[in-house]
């Protein structure tokens, strides 16, 4: 006799396993490099073919060769296999490859278990509102597969087909019911299983390979790419008034160093803390930000943050840097004071780095500035002159900007004159530095979509923006947005309103507002589920007067809830169903038997209706007539070619009240 797990899995079960794996890997596939996707799908397709067409198993050498090729493809496409996303890709590819040598139930179960694990890993990257539904679908398919494998295992030793064969519909239904029944216990585990306040281990930064959003450098095109990305960056709930759109500058990475093409922040300034910070009591705006995970360190705020969120610090140029990268939905409350004066005096070292430009670059721009300088303008007039230049000359705010070469600012200012906010910010900052005004680039987000239902502001990645800051003595660093000079609507109505052409095929205004409105669902989901943590768990019952729940209390509640469920609810749900609903006749008949039993007549299971009627009538002579009547109706309903209506039998039984035989 073969050990149960060593038996071959049937065709049906194998195809179900493949279906589960496909569902589990699909969200991963869309983000994988194309060659890796091919290496994943090939073995999968082969296995389906082998199952349907009966192809022979591949020789060992071919299988090992395929594995080697897949691993090499992985390595070259991802660059490394150390990252989180790369690791999930690796798991996906290995599971697909395992398929080609899986013929036993044991292997099928292995693949199935890891498919569920793979399904869980998707949630590291996406915790969107649709993911739980997708996850539930995957679980249902996995449950059908497990059922199949179980039937397969139980019956594979015998030639006969199982006496009961279920339809696909009933199998899906059964799995769905299992899932639904599990949800109460699953939810109580979710709510009451003690959480860890601090993680036992962190995610090494080197494994973060799915960074999104603004990066630590800015070269032409980097923000433009974000413009296509409609995923939410963060959501803000204000206490009190919401600032006007022109004030909604969400400050992120700040750049000082320019090499002629790329702007970078420098570690040196990142390590310096802010000399002074606005007073918390001065903060005009108080708000809570819910930041989507982006695997980066920046937290975003309006100018200038008066409070420092937990586990983070504020640098000298008012970037808020978190100690750990943001890999989970992060919520922080912060206050901002826009009237604060940032560095009324600037240290010489900082001043020089805010004026630094690569040697010999952009001669034409330098010439233009020299011309303005000769007109004897002061610093503020110079700023105005530059903005007027952008405003008066033929500049276009456009996504289609040609690639720029060595003298990128020159080419932009005099030749192409087309560009996106980053081009304007970059050109403007370079011009200011040429004029001897300390300046720097600030990137972040501008604007946001106000959701009236949820009373929060939604900022998408497509709201990414770049602007400049110039420094004047005593006035400190002041924000100047050259894009506003070219395209005022960019600031007034948001990044998408400023462009005339849609970004892609499905880019309609109504669709965008629908999506913005529908974001409330995601926001609530984040609020209620994704954000749930050790802290929210402990304060779950604070409204009932229980300040903090200790882990032991949580466990007690957990067991109480599960116990209550198992004792009362589960038996109720699992109670033995009455007679088959598909056979109403039998249901009615059983009711009749019940009445007889109450009167003291016990029917033998073997007796037919007529025989039963005779013995019942013998025992209960007073009801003999009605007993015979019911039995006759029943046997005619059951066996006659022209059965009487069911209602007749129902009525007869309704009126049937046998008297207990006392004699």
């Amino acid at each position: 006799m073969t050990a149960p797990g060593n038996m071959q899995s049937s065709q049906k079960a194998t195809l179900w396993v493949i279906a589960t794996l496909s569902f589990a890997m699909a969200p991963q596939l869309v983000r994988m490099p194309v060659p890796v996707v091919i290496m994943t799908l090939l073995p999968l397709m082969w296995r389906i073919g082998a199952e349907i067409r009966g192809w022979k198993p591949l020789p060992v050498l071919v299988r090992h060769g395929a594995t080697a090729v897949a691993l090499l493809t992985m390595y070259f496409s991802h660059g490394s296999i150390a990252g989180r996303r790369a690791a999930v890709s690796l798991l996906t590819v290995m599971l697909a490859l395992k398929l080609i040598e899986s013929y036993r139930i044991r292997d099928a179960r292995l693949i199935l278990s890891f498919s569920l694990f793979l399904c869980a890993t998707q949630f590291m990257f996406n915790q969107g509102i649709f993911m739980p539904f997708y996850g539930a679908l995957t679980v249902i398919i996995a449950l059908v597969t497990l059922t199949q494998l179980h039937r397969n295992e139980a019956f594979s030793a015998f030639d006969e087909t199982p006496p009961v064969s279920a339809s696909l519909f009933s199998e899906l239904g059964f799995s769905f019911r299992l899932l639904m029944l599990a949800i109460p216990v699953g939810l109580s585990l979710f709510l009451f299983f003690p959480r860890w306040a601090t993680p036992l281990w962190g995610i090494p930064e080197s494994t973060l390979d799915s960074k999104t959003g603004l990066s630590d450098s800015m070269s032409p095109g980097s923000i433009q790419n974000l413009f296509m990305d409609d995923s939410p960056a963060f959501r803000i709930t204000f206490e009190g008034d919401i600032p006007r759109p022109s004030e909604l500058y969400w400050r992120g990475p700040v750049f000082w160093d320019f090499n002629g093409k790329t702007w970078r922040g420098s570690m040196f300034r990142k390590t310096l803390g802010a000399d002074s910070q606005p007073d918390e009591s001065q903060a005009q705006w108080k708000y809570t930000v819910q930041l989507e995970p982006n695997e980066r360190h920046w937290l975003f705020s309006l100018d200038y943050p008066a409070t420092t969120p937990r586990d983070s610090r504020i640098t000298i140029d008012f970037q808020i840097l978190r100690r750990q990268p943001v890999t989970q939905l992060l919520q922080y409350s912060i206050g901002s004071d826009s009237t604060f004066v940032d560095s009324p005096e600037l240290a010489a070292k900082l001043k020089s780095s805010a004026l630094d430009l690569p040697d010999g670059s952009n001669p034409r721009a330098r010439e233009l500035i020299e011309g303005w300088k000769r007109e004897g303008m002061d610093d503020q007039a110079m700023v105005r002159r530059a903005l007027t230049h952008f405003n008066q000359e033929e500049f276009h705010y456009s996504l289609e900007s040609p690639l720029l070469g060595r003298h990128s600012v020159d080419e932009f200012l005099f030749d192409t004159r087309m560009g996106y906010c980053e081009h304007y910010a970059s050109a403007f900052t370079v011009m200011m530095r040429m004029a001897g005004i300390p300046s720097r680039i600030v990137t972040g987000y501008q604007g946001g979509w106000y959701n009236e239902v949820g009373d929060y502001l939604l900022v998408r990645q497509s709201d990414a923006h770049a602007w400049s800051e110039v420094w004047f003595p005593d006035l400190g660093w002041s924000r100047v947005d050259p894009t506003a000079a070219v395209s005022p609507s960019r600031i007034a109505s948001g990044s998408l309103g400023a462009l005339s052409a849609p970004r892609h095929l499905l880019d309609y205004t109504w669709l965008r507002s629908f999506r913005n409105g529908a974001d409330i669902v995601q926001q609530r989901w984040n609020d209620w589920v994704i954000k749930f943590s050790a802290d929210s768990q402990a304060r779950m019952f604070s409204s009932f007067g229980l300040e903090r729940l200790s882990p032991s209390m949580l466990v007690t509640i957990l067991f109480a809830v599960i116990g209550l469920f198992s004792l009362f609810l589960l038996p109720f749900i699992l109670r033995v169903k009455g007679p088959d609903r598909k056979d109403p006749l039998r249901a009615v008949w059983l009711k009749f038997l019940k009445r007889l039993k109450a009167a003291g007549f016990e029917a033998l299971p073997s007796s037919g209706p007529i025989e039963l009627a005779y013995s019942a009538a013998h025992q209960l002579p007073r009801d003999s007539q009605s007993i015979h009547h019911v039995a006759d109706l029943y046997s005619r309903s059951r066996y006659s070619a022209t059965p009487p209506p069911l209602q007749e039998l129902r009525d007869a039984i309704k009126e049937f009240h046998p008297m207990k035989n006392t004699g």
Partner: protein
Amino acid sequence: MNTAALISQENGINQRFNLWILERVRRKRGSPELPFTLEYRHIYVMPTMFGFWFGVLLALTAIGGLNFNNNMVLILAFVMAAIAQMTSVLAYRNLSGITLLGFRAPPVFAGQAARFTVLLKNPEERLRFAIQLVSSESSDCTDIKQQATGGLELELMTGRRGWIEMEPFRIENRYPLGLFRAWSVIIPNARCLVYPAPVPNPPPLPKTGRGDFGATRKGEGEHLHGLREYQPGDPLGRIAWRTSARHQTLYSRTMEAPCEDACELNWYLMGGRGTEEKLSILTAWILRAERQQIPYSLEMPAAALPADLGEDHRNACLEILALFEK
């Protein structure tokens, strides 16, 4: 007894565990009195090997989710855990209430597998999925529909003639997902008669050569044997109408075929062979005589049967041989 070999396919710990359970059952409950209904105290539930590793994987997933406070991962792990836990109840429920009605085991010849049929009844209004019987040597599986009876067969290789006791067996199921196994150990009080193995090439049948030995094949044949009172089922052509008319009641003719060649199977006339060999030869002779429709008598030290033919006679003779003791 074969108790040690109850589960040969599983590893040492498992085997020891099964032995321990078997001893427990033997001590507490012994052989069941039929009909025997499986109740909660008879049923054990444990995760299967697959269930165990599945649980480990779920635990790892949950630990990852807890560490990074990834609530979606946690929900998935917890819901899967709840499903798994629930299937242990379902596995138990799938077994509880099943009634063991009895055992049946037609006699076999030594060297053949004894086939014990276990009759199970599902007295309830729900389907029982994939109920398995497992013994050390074989297993069987079936679904039992609502209020239906199912027969499952367990085989047991026989070595020598005589009674063979049915092994203890498990009635189990891994319904619905194969994560948990619910089982009950049954120590059956059933046995199967094992006839001696017939020798392949027996010596020729020892014929008496006396046609008047007395044994005749009754019922069939052309010679009139006698008359008896009519019984329902007698062919019309056999009714002795004239005699019946005289006695005012129906009489049937009984017929007989003369036995030209009855044979006498006699223990004492078999020479100096070994006991088992003699028994095997006698068995082969009985089978051959049956096949050739030659009446045979059997004479053994402790018993003797007159010459006859037919299933009952054959079985009676074989039983004597099976249970023969020196």
